C-alpha cells in the first residue's frame, strides 16, 4: 500500500473538472426524448403503457398527441417500445435540472405547414 499511495502523488487525478469539462454518454443512452409528430398516429399506447403516468394525451389541431411531463418521467422508454410507428427516440441530453417546473412539460408542437397552403 505504501508504494501504491506514493505513486499516486504523481498520477493525474481521475476526476474531471465538470461542469467546465463535460462527459459524453455512450450510444443508446436514455436521455430526454424527442418526438416526431409527423409519424404519430394518435393511438395513445404510449400514454397507456407509461409506468409513471408521465404522458398525457392533449388536443393538437383536432388529434390527440402525447404531452411529456419530464418531472414524472423515469426514462424507461417503454413509450418508445410501445409506439407502433417509432415516433419517440432518445437523445443524450441529461442535464435537465431547472428551477422552473413549467419548462419540464413538453407540449407537442404542431407540424410546420408546407409552403403554399392556407393556415
Amino acid at each position, binding site marked *: 500500500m505504501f508504494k501504491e499511495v506514493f505513486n499516486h502523488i504523481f498520477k493525474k487525478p481521475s476526476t474531471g473538472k465538470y461542469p467546465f469539462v463535460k462527459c459524453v454518454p455512450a450510444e443508446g443512452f436514455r436521455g430526454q426524448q424527442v418526438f416526431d409528430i409527423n409519424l404519430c398516429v394518435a393511438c395513445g399506447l404510449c400514454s397507456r*403503457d407509461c*409506468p409513471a403516468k408521465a404522458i398525457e394525451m392533449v388536443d393538437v389541431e383536432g388529434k390527440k398527441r402525447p404531452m411529456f411531463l419530464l418531472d414524472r418521467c423515469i426514462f424507461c422508454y417503454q413509450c418508445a417500445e410501445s409506439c407502433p410507428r417509432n415516433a419517440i427516440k432518445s437523445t443524450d441530453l441529461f442535464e435537465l435540472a431547472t428551477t422552473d417546473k413549467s419548462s419540464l412539460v413538453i407540449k407537442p408542437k404542431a407540424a410546420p405547414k408546407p409552403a403554399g397552403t392556407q393556415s
Partner: protein
Amino acid sequence: MPKSNIDIVKTLESKLSSKSVQILPGQLGTATVKVAPGDHRDVFRALVDADEYTAISAISGLDLGANLGVYYHVRTSNAFLTIEVEVPKDNPKIQTVNDIAPSATFHELEVSDLIGVVVEGNPRSGHFVLPETWPEGVFPLRKNVNASEVKQNPPLPEEKSDEGKLVKIVIGPQHPALLEPEKFAVLVEGETVKAVQPRIGYVHRGVEKASESRSYLQDVYLVERICGICNSCHATGFVEAVERILKTEVPPRGKYLRTIILEVNRIHSHLLTLGHAGLEIGYETLFQYFWRDREPIMDLQEILTGNRVVSSSLTVGGVRRDLKDTDIPKIRSVLSDLRKRLPFYTELYQNEPSIRARMQNVGTLKREDALKLGVVGPVARGSGVDIDIRKDDPYEAYGEIPFNEIVRSSGDTWARMNVRMDEVEESIKIIEYALDHMPTGAYRVKVPRVVPAGEAIARVEAPRGELFYYVKANGSTMPERVKVRTPTFSNIPAFLKTAIGETIADVPPNFVSLDPCFSCTDR
C-alpha cells in the same frame, strides 16, 4: 445442486400421514402442502428434524375473500416447499413457529402488520413496517383498503423509556454510518453493547400494494425501483415468475444477455460494499480507490443498458435491447483492466494489518446460528453455509456456465468481505464465458398482456443473497398479489445477534459486512 438425498415429500408423507395434510408436488422441485391451522407446527417440526438447512424463506399473506391465506415458503437443502394455511378473516389467529424455526420472527411480524393475522406467541407492539402514524386495525394489503385514502394520526412525541444504567445510543435514522434510514437503538454499558432494538420501515413505500393496480408491463419498472443497487435482480425475479405462469420459454440469447446484465450488477454492487466497508473503518483511501475502479463498470452498464444505474432492460419474454458486436471488445477490455487491479485489493483485504485489526473476530456468526436464523447470501457463505441459488436452483443461463461457489468458515466480518472480494473474480469469469458462448438468434418473444390465473415462485441470487418473488395472477391484466422478500430482511436478525457483547466501535464494520440495503428491506 442437491446437498442431500433427503426426499422431503416422502418424509412428510410418512410422518404426517395421520393428520389432514394434502401434499401436491409442483413445478421445478417445489411442492405445496395444504394444512389446517393447528397442524402447521407439526409440519415444521418434521421438516426441521429431517434437514438442518430448513429455513423460512418468506411468509406471504394473501386476502382470499372470506379467508386470509398465510403461505409459509420454506427452503430445504434440495427442495422448496410452500405450506399453505388459511385462517378465517373474522378470527385471524395462528400460532407462531419461531420456537421451532427462529427464522420466522421478522416474517411473522410483517404479516401481522400488513395483513392483520394475529400470531400467538410472537406479539407485535406498535407497528413493524408501517409508520407510527398509521391507524391501528387498517391493514393495507387487504383488498378493501385503498391506501391513498387512509387518514393518518397526528405524530406523537417519543416517550422516554428508562433503561436503567444502560446508555441508549441511537444509530439512525440519519447517521453517517448508514446509507439509508433505519433506526437501531443500541443499549451500551460503558463501551459494550448489551442489546439492539431495531425499527425498520422508514422507507416503506407500499410497492406490493402498488403493483396490484398496475399492469404487468408497468410492474417490471415499479419492481425494479425497489432498490437502486440490485435493480436487475428484482426485475429478473418478477419476470421469471410471470413467465412461469405463462409457461413461456425465453430464447437462449435472451437468457445469456440477462446473465451478463446480472453479473455486471453483482460486480458493481460488491465493489460498492467493499469500498463502503473501508469508509466505516476510517480507511478513506480504500474507499476512493474502489469507487474509482467501479466507474468503468458503471460505464459498462451504460453501454449494455442505456443507463448507469437502473438498467430497465428486462421485460417479460426476454431483454429489451440486443448486444452489438461492436461493443464486445470494449466490454472485454474493461473486464481485463478490472482483473489486473484485483490482486492488489485481494492482497490488501487479506494481509493489511489495520484491516485485520478492525475486521477479524468482529461480528462472528457461528454456522449453526446461521442455519437456524436462515441468513442468505455472502453472510451465510462467510459462515460455512453453502447456499447459492445460482448453484442450488439454476435459473437463466447459470446451469450451463461453470463457476465456483466461494465459502469461508470463520464467520466474522473479515470472512464476509473476502467472500465478496472473491466473488468479483468469479463474476468476471462468468461474463467472459457468456460472451464466448453467446448463442445467436432472437432475444425476445412476444407475450400476451392478459395473464391467465395461476401462481408461481422465482428465486434469484442478488448480490446480497436470495431474493424471493411470489406472483399470483387472476386472469386480468393486473396481478392479484406480488410478494417480495429481499435478502437484507432475512439478514437483519443475524446482526441483532452478533452485535451483542462487542464494543460500540465494532458496530459499523459489523453492520456494513452484512451489506444492508434498506430500500430493499422496506419495499
